[in-house]
């Protein structure tokens, strides 16, 4: 279940530009299986947190309306090269994943 997550964090001036790609089906719970006609159960990332050197910088709540294999971009001021960025998510089934990267 825990597929790798890609994070890239680069400095632009004194702002770290952080881009994250996650692997997740992001089912809304409103789509039907083409073969059986049954609703495909909802399965999506509901919560995402990002920390910089252990300090929380962003907390997000998502619905199933975020696209499949979600992309997330955000910026943090006052970061510097070598800082550690960690991004963690939890989905509506309770599965979790996290990954970290070093700001460059």
């Amino acid at each position, binding site marked *: 279940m825990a597929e790798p997550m890609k994070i890239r964090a680069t400095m632009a001036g004194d702002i770290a530009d952080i881009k994250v790609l996650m692997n997740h089906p992001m089912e809304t719970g409103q789509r039907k299986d083409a073969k059986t006609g049954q609703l495909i159960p*909802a399965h999506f990332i509901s919560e995402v*947190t*990002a920390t910089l050197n252990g300090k929380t910088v962003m907390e997000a709540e998502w*619905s*199933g309306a*975020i696209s499949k294999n979600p992309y997330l971009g955000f910026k*943090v001021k006052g970061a510097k090269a070598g800082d550690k960025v960690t991004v963690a998510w939890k989905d509506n089934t309770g599965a979790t994943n996290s990954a970290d990267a070093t700001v460059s």
Partner: protein
Amino acid sequence: MNMLRRNILKGASAASTLAIAAGLFGTGNAFAAYNSAAFSAKSVADALKGMGASAPTESKDIAIKAPEIAENGAVVPVEVTSKIAGTTSIAILAEKNPNPLVASFKLENGAEPYISVRIKMGQTAMIRAVVTAGGKTYTAAKEVKVTIGGCGG
């Protein structure tokens, strides 16, 4: 897996499944309580109410970058930048989605008032950004025309 599927199908709606999931897994970890009231709301007004942002002020200081025409509603890139000082949260709504609230982001400890995500849109609609700054809420919207919906099979 099949058992899980049965259980999930029994749920009356995605919202109730979510509530159950939140009840089972929502305690004892670093994540904040999921705002299921706002996310399961079926209208923009109810979603805003669930977020505690019933009457946001229209603001020109919120920039929404999104395509005018999205060929594929399953992947609509949206960027929200707020120029309002002291922005602490940004929420994104797609007004005509079955559940309009798409995502909300809380920003702290130096995070810039900027968010970039890709969202799904069921049909042509306004994308609305709701920004909280200094205890007040502000909003801006931009229309995105969708030629192929991203929800439903």
